[in-house]
């Protein structure tokens, strides 16, 4: 296994300090950008060459996203880091915030330079207060040492970064809801277009990137985009942090090259708990369709491979379920989540997520009806693609995935009013 890139300070007792980050070459990429007066175009070209795709879940090419920011705009522009990591199963950004906050700061400073931005915000998930405090301390440390603020490293470049804490709303992980939230409002997603690059935070041009995406930037600038791309596979450049949770012996975050076989990742997580048999895997966070274990065992952890298997890589959160898992109960909990977290703005999502939950709930509780499964699928069709943001799709995809592969379990519940797994 290669030396870690994103968690390159993890061998220190206090991996989060500026002192330790500097020991592993920290802030050298930023220094290079400023000392060589790299042009924004050259930086964006390097990021494009790296094949880096948004690590929050959507997988949009980062370099392309940066190129959407208006160049000659007079006035404030913003860079926002999305650390509102709330997609069930996902907890990789938390480790970057906790253990390598300066890598994120450096990545944001380079991104800000490339897009002509002077102010950045980092929106941190409300439930991880310790990570928020760590970021606050790191920004203070960086400010004092001249890595944030005016005349950074003595050059004519200004950038400051502030942390904003969320307080319990999954939907704020959606970029425009997140902007509303920073503006001090309830987090309801905005219509797009206009896209944030033209009308973002406080109505100004804004780019929003995920934490892991931005933390990947220093390596790409110091080592070159091609080198990063070559670590991964075609269409999935670089390395990635995967959160492996659920029924494994050693749950954790693992930094591996894109394209690593799922089998290898499962072994790194200690295999299925207590020698049990693998039943199913959600490969990219709770919104992505579930896949049977035997399909997963032949797939690799990259965008194309997982898609060929019938799901998506999403945020890289791998949720492992063993043979004791009742799929009806699992879907019931997921459907409750989307129902609870729908912001209520669009009718198909507000009403539809409630319907999905209530129907799966009654199947789980022995009150399912023969027509319920078709009703669920018809509901999904009327939610997905019919809402302002992707939360509607996120609610529908798990239902479709669970029914595609485990329909017989649902039918058993309806017919026998009890669980197939427990029988």
């Amino acid at each position, binding site marked *: 296994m290669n030396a870690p890139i994103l968690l390159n300070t993890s061998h220190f007792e206090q991996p989060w300090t500026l002192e330790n980050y500097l020991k592993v070459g920290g802030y050298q990429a930023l220094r290079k950008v400023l000392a060589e007066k790299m042009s924004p175009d050259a930086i964006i070209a390097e990021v494009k060459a790296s094949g880096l795709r948004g690590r929050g879940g959507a997988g949009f090419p980062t370099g392309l996203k940066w190129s959407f920011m208006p160049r000659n705009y007079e006035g404030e522009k913003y860079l926002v880091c999305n650390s509102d990591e709330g997609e069930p199963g996902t907890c990789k950004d938390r480790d970057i915030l906790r253990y390598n906050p300066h890598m994120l700061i450096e990545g944001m400073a380079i991104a800000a330079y490339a897009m002509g931005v002077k102010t950045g915000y980092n929106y941190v998930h409300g439930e*991880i207060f310790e990570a928020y405090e760590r970021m606050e301390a790191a920004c203070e440390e960086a400010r004092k040492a001249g890595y944030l603020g005016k005349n950074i490293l003595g050059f004519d470049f200004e950038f400051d970064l502030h942390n*904003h804490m*969320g307080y319990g709303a999954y939907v704020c992980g959606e970029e425009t809801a997140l902007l509303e939230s920073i503006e001090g409002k309830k987090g309801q997603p905005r219509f797009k277009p206009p896209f944030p690059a033209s009308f973002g935070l406080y109505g100004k041009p804004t780019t929003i990137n995920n934490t892991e995406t931005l933390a990947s930037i220093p390596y790409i600038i110091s080592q070159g985009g091609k080198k990063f791309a070559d670590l991964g596979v075609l269409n999935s450049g670089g390395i990635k942090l995967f959160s492996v949770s*659920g029924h494994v012996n050693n749950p954790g975050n693992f930094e591996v090259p894109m394209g690593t076989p799922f089998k290898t990742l499962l072994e790194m997580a200690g295999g299925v708990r207590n020698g049990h048999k693998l039943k199913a895997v959600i490969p990219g966070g709770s919104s992505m369709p579930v896949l049977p274990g035997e399909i997963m065992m032949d797939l690799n952890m990259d965008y194309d491979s997982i898609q060929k298997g019938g799901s998506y890589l999403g945020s890289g959160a791998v949720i492992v379920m063993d043979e004791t898992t009742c799929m009806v109960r*699992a879907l019931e909990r997921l459907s409750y989540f989307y129902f609870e977290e729908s912001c209520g703005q669009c009718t198909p999502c507000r009403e539809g997520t409630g319907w999905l939950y209530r129907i799966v709930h009654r199947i789980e509780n022995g009150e399912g009806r023969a027509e319920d499964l078709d009703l669920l699928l018809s509901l999904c069709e009327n939610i997905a693609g019919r809402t302002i943001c992707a939360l509607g799709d996120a609610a529908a995809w798990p239902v479709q995935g669970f029914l595609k592969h485990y329909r017989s379990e649902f039918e058993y519940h309806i017919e026998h009013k009890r669980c197939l797994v427990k029988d």
Partner: protein
Amino acid sequence: MLSDQIQTKINRELGKYPAEQKQSAVMAALRFVQDEKGWIADEDMADVAAYLGMPQMAVFEVASFYHMYNLKPMGKHTLTVCTNISCMLCGSAETVAHLTKRLGIGFGEVTPDGKFGLREGECMGACVDAPMFTINNKKLCGRLTSEKIDQILAELDKQ
């Protein structure tokens, strides 16, 4: 009236945002109120609204939208238990059963002595440490077992 301490903290937050965007500090302001009082009453929202120069209704919209604000009195130590998928697979049902039995309360309730409160939470973004709860939205306790929970409760009981 917002206490001097809260005002100092809010002023620090205001420094993060453009001068004309005071509303951006509303989430933090409500958090500070809850940290001090344990919950947010209508009067507190009115105080925050006046301090930030925004309509009281806009403050209420925020306070009622985000799950982590307590809009009714909760315990001195309020535990929020995640029951989402990864925690569920790792036994959050047992965590909840153990807490309910030990504290004699269910979700949304407070022990008669006001010491402990219990809430159900959604994904906390720490799934590899499942099952887990947070204490007063500040401290996250993961990889819970019955013994570990008893230990945490005993320590909190002393405070």
